[in-house]
């Protein structure tokens, strides 16, 4: 049996398709106690911004039916300290790394790309554009084709030729295919689908929103059908654009569902909180399922659910 589990996103190769999801594995150290991080296809770092951020006030989370809401508010040390501390550690450990970046303006994305263009030991850049754009009444970049495009263009212009760009989209839009087309036109090599879904929980005791930030991002198994739909729609429209799928994956079956919809790699987020070894379990489960279904490689299975739609 010579099963090929490797995958590609843009020009980057990964030994296997199981990644952590941004913001759900910190910068790796904490999980390394539970498994060897080199077993991951890649570790995706939490989204880093230019400056240090305190993030939102607490409470920052609320459990929901088969999911959770979070409003971390992109807490982090800022890109300089991140490059000083986190990246060297990941490199030392030999962990395949995807860096996630986030900005509040188009210029922020440009600056972050310039800071990263010559950093070695990074396999790809994930560009989180589900952030409020301070220059546009706080409207989220990913929710508007024009600003989504501008953010990705800024990264593309400044990153140089090498590093693949994965644009991470929000599901909170009327037409995700439209946004996908724009960011691909702007130079994204691959797409990450999906970020969290905007939600709210009201505490029936205090009778106010449970999160200090009122709204938060919904993640976990509850949103998997939304992720599968988004991936399926985008893969149908642009079968050649690689997708890093995510949203509620916690076992091999879930991952297979996203692969069949069109994902070439899978990020695991919320499931890590319930089980620190979730990525490894998903990886083993997915490989087993693919083999048992007669696939010789992961690639054969990507988008397989579309086969009957072909003309």
């Amino acid at each position, binding site marked *: 049996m010579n099963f090929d589990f490797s995958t590609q996103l843009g020009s980057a190769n990964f030994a296997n398709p199981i990644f952590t999801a941004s913001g759900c594995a910190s910068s790796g150290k*904490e999980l390394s*106690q539970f498994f060897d991080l080199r077993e991951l296809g890649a570790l995706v770092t939490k989204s880093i911004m230019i400056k240090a951020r*305190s993030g939102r*006030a607490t409470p920052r989370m609320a459990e929901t039916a*088969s999911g959770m809401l979070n409003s971390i508010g992109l*807490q982090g040390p*800022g890109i300089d300290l991140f490059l000083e501390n986190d990246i060297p550690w990941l490199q030392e450990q030999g962990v395949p790394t995807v860096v996630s970046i986030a900005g509040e303006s188009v210029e922020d994305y440009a600056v972050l790309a310039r800071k990263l263009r010559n950093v070695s030991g990074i396999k790809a850049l994930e560009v989180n554009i589900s952030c409020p754009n301070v220059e546009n009444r706080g409207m989220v970049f990913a929710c508007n084709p024009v600003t989504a495009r501008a953010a990705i263009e800024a990264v593309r212009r400044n990153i140089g030729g090498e590093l693949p760009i994965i644009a991470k989209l929000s599901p909170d839009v009327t037409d995700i295919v439209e946004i996908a087309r724009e960011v691909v036109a702007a130079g994204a090599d691959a797409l990450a689908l999906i970020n969290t879904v905007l939600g709210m929980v009201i505490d029936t005791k205090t009778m106010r929103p449970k999160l200090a930030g009122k709204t938060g991002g919904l993640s976990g198994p509850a949103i998997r059908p939304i992720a599968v739909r988004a991936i399926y729609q985008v893969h149908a429209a642009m079968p050649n654009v690689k997708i890093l799928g995510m949203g509620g994956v916690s076992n091999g079956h879930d991952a297979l569902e996203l692969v069949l919809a069109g994902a070439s790699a899978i990020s695991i987020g919320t499931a890590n*909180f*319930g089980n*620190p070894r979730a990525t490894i379990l998903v990886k083993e489960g997915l490989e087993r399922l693919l083999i048992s279904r007669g696939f010789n490689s992961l690639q054969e299975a990507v988008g397989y659910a579309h086969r009957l739609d072909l003309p």
Partner: protein
Amino acid sequence: MNKFAAQIESELLSNKKVGAYHHLVLSVGDIAAHARPGNFVAIAVGGEGSSMVLRRAFAIYRASDRENGLGYIELVVAPHGKGSTWLTAQQPGALIDLVGPLGTAFGIPTQPVRALLVGGGYGSAPLFGLSEVLKSRGNRIDMVLGASTAMKIYAPLEGKRSVNSLTITTDDGSAGIAGKVSDVLREIIDENQIDIVYSCGPMGMLQVITEITQEKEVMHQCAIEESMACGIGICMTCVLPIKDDSGLIRMVRSCIEGPVVDGERVVWDSNRKIPEGTWGA
């Protein structure tokens, strides 16, 4: 990050109702040997097919290291919401998915001290293990336990024996002194010439204790309780504003830089706001 943390399938050995709580004993192998007073465990709740996706944190009440990997830990659990109610409904023999030991532990002074242990509700749980350790080092220990009502005082017999004095307060006066633990603290600190206060309980209580210990200039270590999604430092939901030596406030993860923190370092009353001057605010 607690470097001994491991994920295991633990067997529930016993589950007994004690007042308003359940006293659980879990077989945890080597985890028991590594557990220190103040550490906690994170337990997956709801079983297969559950709609609850997050672990629940529980302070380790006591840990007993036995040879041959037969260690066990004890927890004191209040059936509160869906997760803790599920846990307290499990029968001996049930397999429980557990990660631990997690978090920081109470600091044990190298010099002899006069320690006051203050617990609120199930917050008394980690204090008995702590009192045993302190006592074995020859320290004098006083304890104050408070709760809304008598049923919610968790003070087992063998626990009482390990302290030099035990004061109980209840809001409704159904046991001990009617009032809050904070009402009796100043007097006990003065009378017993307390050097250090250890506390565990609701945030409001810990805040008041900090005010008193600062006024009295005694040390204060408290085990805090923030909503935690992961317990292992990867989600950033459990943060608390803490001042470092230079006075800089940072939002630190209470699951790995806590739950035990220095009371005077905590910027209290920060629920729903980021304190001014916090790094990155």
